């Protein structure tokens, strides 16, 4: 590689000393990059090893040591026995709460976002731009500013402390981003397509269903991953609008870690943290490309 760049410059290859220097520089670069990889991996490594140790070993051993004796007790306890307050059922019920909250929340906000995006991109009307700007701005508000009235409204409609209430909140405040994603994607589809379909007698929904939806797989994947990560990882709405029975997993994890009763079980805490992080981590590893695309689209464009 070094040789290639040298000849590319069209100049004479430098002396042997310079070549060795370049090679050393390259090794230094790799060493530095790997060092940073260690920095990012260390917390995950420590979490994993701690979760596989016994409490006794945690107290006597070093933070970064591998477990002398691997035990999955902490994982079992984190899943079905750890206390989140007075309840001691582990993370399991809260894991399913999160699933029941995230799946409808993701599907609803994605579907509505697709329709909205389709309109903003292809069925422009007067005032659409202004409305789009207002919608975009909604993505940026600090949610603290809607927390109080939302709590009251959910109370009035009997949705306070329920999973449907959380689904509703996540759908509403997810719409800005999902609309943005689909709009930016559909804008690249030529208007002539819609015009031609209209001449052939196809209506609004027909065009969406038979032309746009089949083209939407990539952006749908990006949106679904984005929304899933947002909703699964949310803490603020979860802690503000849920009650003991409907808490999402992030709230339960925080309760386990900060529960003050009994002995501090670090191995259980770590196992619980990994369980809570596993679904999004899994999505990231399987579909990392789309995950990154969502992140960059969500930031560069909006």
């Amino acid at each position, binding site marked *: 590689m070094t040789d290639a760049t040298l000849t590319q410059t069209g100049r004479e290859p430098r002396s042997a000393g310079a070549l060795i220097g370049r090679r050393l520089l390259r090794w230094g670069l790799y060493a530095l990059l790997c060092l*940073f990889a260690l920095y990012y991996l260390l917390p995950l490594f420590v979490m994993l090893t701690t979760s596989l140790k016994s409490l006794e070993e945690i107290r006597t051993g070093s933070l970064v040591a591998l477990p002398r004796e691997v035990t999955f007790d902490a994982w079992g306890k984190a899943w079905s026995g750890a206390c989140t307050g007075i309840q001691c059922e582990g993370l399991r019920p809260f894991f399913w709460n999160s699933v029941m909250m995230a799946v409808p929340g993701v599907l609803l906000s994605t579907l509505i976002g697709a329709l909205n995006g389709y309109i903003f991109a292809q069925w422009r009307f007067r005032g659409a731009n202004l409305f789009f700007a207002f919608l975009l701005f909604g993505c940026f508000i600090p949610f603290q500013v809607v*927390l109080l009235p939302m709590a009251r409204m959910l109370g009035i409609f009997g949705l306070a402390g329920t999973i449907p209430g959380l689904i509703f909140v996540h759908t509403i405040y997810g719409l800005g981003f999902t609309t943005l994603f689909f709009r930016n994607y559909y804008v690249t589809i030529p208007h002539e397509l819609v015009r031609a379909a209209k001449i052939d007698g196809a209506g609004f929904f027909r065009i969406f269903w038979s032309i746009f939806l089949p083209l939407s797989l990539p952006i749908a994947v990006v949106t679904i991953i984005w929304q899933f990560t947002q909703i699964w990882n949310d803490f603020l709405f979860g802690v503000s609008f849920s009650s003991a029975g409907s808490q999402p997993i*992030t709230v339960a994890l925080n309760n386990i870690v900060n529960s003050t009763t009994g002995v501090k079980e670090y191995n259980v805490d770590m196992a619980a943290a990994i369980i*809570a992080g596993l679904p999004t981590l899994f999505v990231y590893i399987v579909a990392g490309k789309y995950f990154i695309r969502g992140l960059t689209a969500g*930031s560069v464009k909006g």
Partner: protein
Amino acid sequence: MTDWLSRHVPKIVLAPTFVAVLLFVYGFIAWTAWVSLTRSKLLPRYEIDGLIQYERLFASPRWDTALSNLFVFGALFIGISMILGLMLAIFLDQKIRIEGALRTIYLYPMALSMIVTGTAWKWILNPGLGIQAMVQGWGFESFTFDWLINPDMALYAIVMAAVWQASGFVMALFLAGLRSVDGEIIKAAQVDGIPTWRVYTAIIIPSMAPIFLSAFIVLAHLAIKSFDLVIALTGGGPGYATDLPATYMYAMAFSRGDLGQAASSAMIMMLVVFTIVVPYLYSELRAKND
């Protein structure tokens, strides 16, 4: 009739979103703004009573700490993440063979919940069994690393965890930016014998100005909203040492029962976001329409 309907279908489909945004974003902001001007305590009251809540807010030492924490935290978090992200992006851009794997490793923390991140770092930084104990165990008995329980340092522990979580994302943004710079210009510069570092400082980095802006906006936004990480890592403690506006607002709303203070602190948060985001959104949308 059907003609009218078919002409207005797009607007009808968009109407629920329109109503929802109007009500749940702007209506709710208006509600909060209104309540911030009243003497609401446990329950909202609607008689306007001037700026009394804001006066209380800025007279409160706890809010003072929270606000200055936000600026210290924000500056360090944004600054370090940007520098680290840019550095990693430039290094990764040197035709590194294992780039894909490294990129995956640098970015994975962004997929995690801040609560998970906080839990992990709380364990690593706890003085009794974490890094401090480990280094002491190596024979450096006097080594101390007690940021998490030291009121003067706890905020920096939060910066550390936040940088760990977000810097990989900044790297990804910058890397995408580096890749979009015109390769011909770089090649031409190399033909002219300009050293690589000069190519970066004089050509590539200046051409990435919009990406710097995007990264700044995203990070600033994350910093202002930071709530989960503080709750998981320090709970705002020791004392109020790591309180941020977000945790202050939450405490007032849900444990102190002081709606007036919660509303006014939320409005100040909103104002901070406003001053950062609106000029950005404005320029973005205008550029698109042109």
